[in-house]
Every structure is written in structure tokens, then in C-alpha cells.
């Protein structure tokens, strides 16, 4: 290919160089750029200028600082004012979506669908058990009783990143424990589990928790929860 024929192709590739340096090209485009750089010395020389621009753009932006707390205060004051004026209608509770969210946070994305089935089983089990207990006690029924039981012994647990829904189901089954709430915090992904339907002595709860903690494949963190 002579120099004249080469120029339009080079221009097209050259336009992609900033994104190639930033690593945001599609695989196909990135391969095209790599090939062109390997066979075109002039283009490679031009590419050498890009990392410098990229580094200084990042440096420049990083020295811009951050907004003061005033911005956040203003935002939440505005949200409060809006909610006071006209509280928003909550979306209807979407069980499948909620479960999918829960599972997505437990396992890699690829496992989300298969794990959904396992969590459905856990939640249905918890709901049925709670409903039976409530009915037997003659108390008014309500979802808060099923999702937040107060009787028994509890623990909070953060599952290990590599734990799959099957691992978690088997783990809970082995201890006859039930998932009753969570995630309790947005960042930490803590879940509340019921260890026993009756209140156990403190040292016995401690023993179970220590044993559970030793299951490092499934448990990242666990602590007794009153």
C-alpha cells in the first residue's frame, strides 16, 4: 500500500488512539489499532503523544478537589422538602426483582439466575414457617412478622464472595438456620440469620457462631446478634 492509500486508513485509526490509550475500545477496534501500530512507524510515533495527554488530564482533574458538604446538605434538604410536599408512590413490591438483586449481590452475575431459585426456596420456607407460627398464636398476620421475627437466637453474617447460592443453602440447612433479613447495610452486605427458634444460652450461641466462622468457604464474617 502506498503512502496516499494509507492516509485515510491511518486517519481513521488515529482518531481511535485516545480511546485505545484509555482502554475503552471494543475488542475488535483495539485489535485493529494494535495491528496498525505494529505496522506503521509514523502512527506509532503519534501514539506516543497520547499517554502524556491522558496522564496530565487525569492529574489536572484529580487536583480539582471535591465539593463541600454544603452540596450534599442542599441535596437532601431539597429531597426532604419534596417528600414533605408530595411523598412519592412506592413501586409495588416486586418479589422476583428483589430476589434477583439479593442473589446478584451474593454471587457472580452468571450465577444470578440459578441462585434465584435457591433463594426463593429459602424465603418461601421462612414465610411459610412464620405464617404457621403466627396463625397458631392467633396474632394478626403481616409481612413484618415473617421478615423480622423477634423470638429465637440470631446472628449477622457476610457470606464469602466465592460462596454460591447452593453453598449458602447447604450451609444454612446444615445448621437448620434460616435467612430472615438483609442485606442490613448497603456496603457490607450483612444478612440476619436465625440460628434457633428458641432463645439459646449465650455460650451456646457463641459456640455455633465460632463453628460457622470456621466454614471459610461460605462465611466471610459472622457475629451473634441479639
Amino acid at each position, binding site marked *: 500500500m502506498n503512502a496516499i492509500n494509507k492516509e485515510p486508513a491511518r486517519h481513521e485509526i488515529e*482518531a481511535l488512539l485516545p480511546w485505545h490509550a484509555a482502554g475503552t475500545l471494543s475488542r475488535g477496534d483495539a485489535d485493529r489499532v494494535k495491528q496498525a501500530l505494529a505496522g506503521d512507524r509514523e502512527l506509532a510515533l503519534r501514539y506516543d503523544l497520547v499517554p502524556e*495527554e*491522558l496522564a496530565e488530564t487525569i492529574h489536572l482533574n484529580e487536583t480539582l478537589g471535591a465539593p*463541600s458538604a454544603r452540596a*450534599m446538605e442542599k441535596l437532601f434538604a431539597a429531597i426532604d422538602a419534596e417528600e414533605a410536599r408530595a411523598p412519592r408512590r*412506592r413501586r409495588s413490591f416486586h418479589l422476583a426483582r428483589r430476589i434477583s438483586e439479593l442473589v446478584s449481590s451474593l454471587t457472580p452475575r452468571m450465577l444470578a439466575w440459578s441462585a434465584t431459585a435457591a433463594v426463593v426456596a429459602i424465603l418461601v420456607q421462612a414465610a411459610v414457617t412464620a405464617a404457621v407460627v403466627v396463625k397458631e398464636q392467633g396474632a394478626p398476620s403481616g409481612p413484618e412478622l415473617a421478615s423480622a421475627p423477634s423470638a429465637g437466637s440470631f446472628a449477622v453474617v457476610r457470606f464469602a464472595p466465592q460462596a454460591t447460592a447452593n453453598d449458602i443453602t447447604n450451609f444454612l440447612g446444615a445448621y437448620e438456620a434460616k435467612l430472615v433479613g438483609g442485606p442490613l447495610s448497603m456496603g457490607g452486605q450483612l444478612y440476619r440469620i436465625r440460628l434457633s427458634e428458641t432463645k439459646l444460652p449465650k455460650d451456646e450461641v457463641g459456640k455455633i457462631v465460632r463453628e460457622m466462622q470456621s466454614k471459610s468457604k461460605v462465611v466471610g464474617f459472622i457475629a451473634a446478634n441479639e
Partner: protein
Amino acid sequence: MQSTSDEVLIGRIANGDRLAMQVLYARYHVRVFRFVVRLVRNEATAEDLISEVFLDVWRQAGRFEGRSTVSTWMLAIARFKAISALRRRSDEELDDETAGAIEDLSDDPATVLEKKDKSAIIRKCLMGLSAEHREIVDLAYYHEKSVEEVAEIVGIPENTVKTRMFYARKRLAELLKAAGIERGWP
């Protein structure tokens, strides 16, 4: 354990979950602020604008369809707010500001000293780019947005994004040349 995804947070915000809003704010307020402050060149204005951006996120979360990433969606809102704020300023004000930025490249005593530091000169020249060029450069290099995402945020075709980036880099080379740095391109 993965952290909660942006899309999940938006779903919760749509249901009025303030905690999710706080998490999203903590995750992105600095980046959005920096994007806006580079466009409007005024920190107080940028602070006001990011409150408005996140308030729009709160209001519109229920309409987010996931066609783009949450950060791309937020940067598009931020850009719209910044451009509207810039339009409210008088043309005279903008002309003075642009002239000031270019004069800064060669006239102030600090710049003379900084000429020894190539990196500082490049940064100074990056600051001297027009708002139109600055946003493309920042989105591609700092915010790590692909050509498609930049096109969506700025609201222009993908080919225009590439062309605009080319001219932004060309302008940068001219500013660098004026400041004594010859790059041999374009």
C-alpha cells in the same frame, strides 16, 4: 462480596430509598463535580449544579431504563445542567474568561517558571481548551467513557466525537507550540 450495583441503587432510589441515594452520591459526587467544574470553571456554581443533578436522579430514577450505564446517564444530566448555566452567563463574561485562560499560558510570572516543567505546561494548555474540546478530552481520558458513551453524553454522532477529539488534540498541540513545546504533530 460485590458492592451493590449502580442499577440496583437506582431501583431502590426509585422506591424512595434515601440510603441508596447516599451511597450513589458518595460513589459519584466527586466525579460529577469535577466534570461540571471543568465546564463552568466556578466551584460554587459547580456545587449548586451537582445538587441539582442528584436531585434529578432522585426524581427520574423510576424512568431509568438501563440503556446506558448509570454514570453515563448522570454525566449527561450534569452536562445539560452545566451548559444551561453557561448559557445564563453573558457572552462578554465568557469571552473574558476564554481570553484569560489563553493569556495565562504565556503571560503570568508563574508560567515562566513552570516552563521548566513540561507536565505543568500540558495541564495549563488543557485548561486553555474550549469547553467543547475540554469535555471530550475529559470524558475520554478521565471519565473513561467510550466513543459511544461520549456520543450519548454530549448528544452528537460517534464520528463527530472522534473528529472533535482530533481537533481538540490539534488545538492542544497549537497551544503547546505557543508555550514553547513542539510535539511534531499535527
